[in-house]
């Protein structure tokens, strides 16, 4: 039987970040990846927040193959016939180093894999792990078909479905309430056209998030990110809500209806779709985080449910990178003591709890309940757009004072028990 110091399952952002840290410290580390190359199975919307990760891997991201630096943010609320968009542009977003950037995973993960390899990590694509290998009640390696590879410690960085965490008994089976489905299309457009559409200079990018009637009352929304020569357009929808929807609608049909909205049609017209992808997203927040460590095992990234839907932002990539680094550091500590028991590896949880990503998960721990309120997707966009329609329209009848229109809308639509209750709940975020 072969043996190495550390085996990492999954060459996604969590696994590769852990590999980078470990290889950098001279540890013998092997990353096994089921895809033909790192990134070939991975999907994200595409915006990576750099601030939370920079201090953990100083300098590493300075030359990363990012698509664009985000300098403009749009948020669009949709009703069946109208939309209200808020746009935020600021010179602060143009600062260097960037606050957030867009990425395409096939490219980005391969780059990170190269960086980890340069440090000495062995990355083995085309290798699917079937199970953990147990010895004396603790994880002591991995199994793939008949092959067993022993290791002092295994890091499960195998993404949202994480069969490794499940097989090692770290968590129960998935609950539809805690998982969302993401669907996405890559639509190619000339670089110049993308810049003109969003009012950007070369290298600058925009994001646009959509919520409201497009999800037909289901928790979720749409997203659009600009890449160098393409748009990433997609939707994320709660699996629980998809299951409960009456009449049913297929995610693909829902997505096509979204693409037919005039707000989207103008942006993608003349573009060529070149890829359609789907991937699940852990959205249960803090309460769905599994056990993070056991004897010989650590769990990082999506596999550990470390993903945060903040309503207007989805953050999983920065959390994957930070948790990967912290898992790496925990292994270094354990290695120094030559002690890979649960007790020794438990330092990982301490590191995580002390990190800003965990604090953010904690601050926004009530987000899943708040976002599962259908009024957020139906009623409130409706009220906002009705109010603005009244303010902006000029009819044959004389207009009322704006203050009156606003007050009337508030008293008619918002001074209601359910609305006040929603407001009360929102104090938690």
């Amino acid at each position, binding site marked *: 039987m072969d043996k190495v110091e550390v085996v990492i399952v999954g060459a996604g952002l969590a696994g590769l970040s852990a590999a980078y840290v470990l290889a950098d410290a001279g540890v013998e580390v092997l990353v096994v990846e089921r895809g033909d190359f790192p*990134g070939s199975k991975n999907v994200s919307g595409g915006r990576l927040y750099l601030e939370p990760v920079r201090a953990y891997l100083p300098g590493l991201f300075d030359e990363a193959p990012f698509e664009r630096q985000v300098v403009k943010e749009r948020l669009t609320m949709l009703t069946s016939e109208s939309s209200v968009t808020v746009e935020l542009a600021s010179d602060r977003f143009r600062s260097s180093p960037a606050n957030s950037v867009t990425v395409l995973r096939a490219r980005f993960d391969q780059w990170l894999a190269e960086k980890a390899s340069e440090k000495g990590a062995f990355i083995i694509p085309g*290798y699917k792990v079937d199970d953990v290998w147990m010895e004396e009640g603790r994880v002591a390696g991995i199994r793939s078909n008949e092959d067993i590879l022993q290791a002092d410690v295994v890091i499960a960085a195998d993404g949202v479905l994480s069969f490794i965490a499940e097989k090692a008994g770290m968590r129960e089976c998935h*609950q539809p309430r805690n998982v969302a489905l993401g669907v996405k299309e890559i639509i190619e457009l000339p670089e110049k056209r993308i810049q003109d559409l969003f009012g950007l200079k070369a290298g600058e990018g925009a994001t646009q998030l959509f919520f409201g009637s497009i999800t037909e009352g289901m928790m979720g929304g749409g997203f659009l990110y600009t890449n160098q020569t393409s748009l990433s357009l997609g939707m994320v929808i709660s699996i629980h809500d*998809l*299951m409960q929807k009456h009449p049913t609608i297929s995610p693909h049909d829902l997505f096509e209806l979204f693409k037919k909205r005039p707000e989207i049609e103008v942006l993608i017209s003349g573009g060529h779709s070149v890829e*359609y992808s789907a991937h*699940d997203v852990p959205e249960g927040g803090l309460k769905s985080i599994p056990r993070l460590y056991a004897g010989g095992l650590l769990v990082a990234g999506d596999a550990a449910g470390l993903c945060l839907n903040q309503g207007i932002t989805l953050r999983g990539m920065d959390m994957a990178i930070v948790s990967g680094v912290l898992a790496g550091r925990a292994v270094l500590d354990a290695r120094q003591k030559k002690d890979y028991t649960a007790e020794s590896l438990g330092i990982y949880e301490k590191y995580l709890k002390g990190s800003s990503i965990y604090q953010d998960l904690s601050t926004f721990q009530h987000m899943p309940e708040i976002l599962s309120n259908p009024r957020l997707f139906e009623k409130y966009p409706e009220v906002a757009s009705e109010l603005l329609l009244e303010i902006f329209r000029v009819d044959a009848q004389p207009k009322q004072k704006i203050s009156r229109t606003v007050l009337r809308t508030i008293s008619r639509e918002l001074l209601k028990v359910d609305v006040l209750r929603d407001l009360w709940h929102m104090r938690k975020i």
Partner: protein
Amino acid sequence: MNIEAKLGLDVFQIDSEQSHILIDQEVCQSRCTIRYCLHVCPADLYDLNENGEMTVDYEGCLECGTCYVACREDALEWHYPRAGYGVQYRFG
């Protein structure tokens, strides 16, 4: 764009020997009435055949796992495809 055209955009390495998703027909027929798998799959791969059996066209699977999460009856034996097979994202 219809779903066939959309899946036509993707690169698949098809495993013609084995499906990575196995359906327990017994469970589907005796216990399941809602058939969530039929309407949650982003590739519309599930279908009932003329014998009333649930089928999945696994060759077009995007490997998201949604059917596996949604099936409340444990009727699916769901694995990732063998190494070297399945969808290959060129952008992601």
